[in-house]
């Protein structure tokens, strides 16, 4: 066996080592497969149930009406659609359900600061605003290049991050890392309220 062969064998041996498989990732995949199966089965069943001659006629007629509707309907992002949806964009339920009688649960001001001198826009996103990047813009201090925002947060554990220039996801370098099993991009942990 030549030296070349030995070298190639060593390289291949190293590359053949199996990586650690995250059982949770595999489980997530199977959940998705089960959902996929459910989806196709429901579509199939629904297709059979509805396919009767009379309904076919009705369907054709409805399709014609629908075609007219679709041509005149506003696009999904049209402001016309905004009104009913705006409520769903905010975690309004949590605010409405809050009981002001428990004074120790009152929201308290928390200032977040992020250094990004060259950014033209920085926003705070987190579980407290339903990960809506349009809710908390940060203000820039031109002298220091620091961005800051003050949030009113209730006691508990919050996860947050910064969105820079509308596209970049940035963790807070000064906070603990919040692992993320769903998307693999960690956020930062903010603990509000200790005795």
């Amino acid at each position, binding site marked *: 066996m030549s030296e070349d062969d030995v070298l190639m064998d060593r390289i291949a041996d190293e590359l053949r080592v199996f990586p650690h498989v995250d059982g949770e990732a595999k489980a997530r995949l199977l959940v998705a497969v089960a959902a996929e199966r459910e989806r196709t089965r429901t579509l199939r069943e629904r297709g059979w149930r509805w396919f009767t001659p009379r309904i076919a006629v009705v369907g054709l007629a*409805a399709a014609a009406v629908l075609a007219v509707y679709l041509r005149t309907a506003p696009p999904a992002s049209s402001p016309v659609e905004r009104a009913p949806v705006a409520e769903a964009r905010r*975690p309004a339920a*949590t605010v409405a359900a809050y009981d002001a009688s428990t004074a120790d649960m009152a929201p308290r001001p928390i200032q977040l600061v992020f250094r990004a001198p060259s950014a033209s826009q920085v926003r705070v996103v987190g579980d407290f605003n339903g990960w809506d990047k349009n809710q908390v813009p940060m203000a820039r201090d031109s002298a220091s290049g620091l961005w800051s925002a003050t949030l009113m947060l209730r006691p508990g554990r919050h996860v947050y991050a910064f*969105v820079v220039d509308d596209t970049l996801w940035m963790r807070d370098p000064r906070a603990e890392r919040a692992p993320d099993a769903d998307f693999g991009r960690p956020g930062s942990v903010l603990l509000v309220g200790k005795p």
Partner: protein
Amino acid sequence: MNIVRVSRLLALATLLVVARRTEAQQIAYAADLGAEMDSVSRASITREITLARDRGLPVEALVAKVREGRLKRANGLRIHVAVVALARRLDSARAGLGPNSTPEELAAGADAIAVGGDVSSLRTLRAATTRSVAAPVGTFAQLLASGVERARALTMVVNLLHRNATPAQLLALGNLVESDVVAGIRPDEAAAFRLRAIEGMSILSGDKVEVAAPAPVTQPPATQSQPPKRRP
């Protein structure tokens, strides 16, 4: 063929389709499902959220999950998987906390399920108080995520509830234990230490152990509701 009947059916079918489409558009818009997402994922995610809503689950958490995925630039499939998994956890949370649970309670329950909590623990927590269980369940989830063993975490929270601990006290316990664990202290040790400290400081309302009457699972939650404890 009865023309009146067909017309009625036609009108009904059209209304249903139009309503469904408008609803799908609303969900797509609220969840910021951009046009660049592939159509299969887009449709699957919208459908999953609609089904969850039809089952009576709160859609805010699911919509927030989609937005989170979009911000993190996850692809459509991965977001779909995350939404399906969260919907399943919300289902389990509702099985444990009862059908009349608030969205905050269910969100906290889903967090607990994600880190190893089970339906029976959620039932126990629901039965331990007549007030909202959002904070207790959130604390339970935080303790589990910090590595505290499930039975121990459950006992701690239930005992504190029986001693009328306030939601803020419970949440503080979760925060302290998490900080300790981050600092290198063993989870069970941190939990025991912090529990003793809280008891020693007599910050709970009286030392007398009062066991609240267990609330039936179907009973609507009390008006006092606490903010959700978020995903550990």
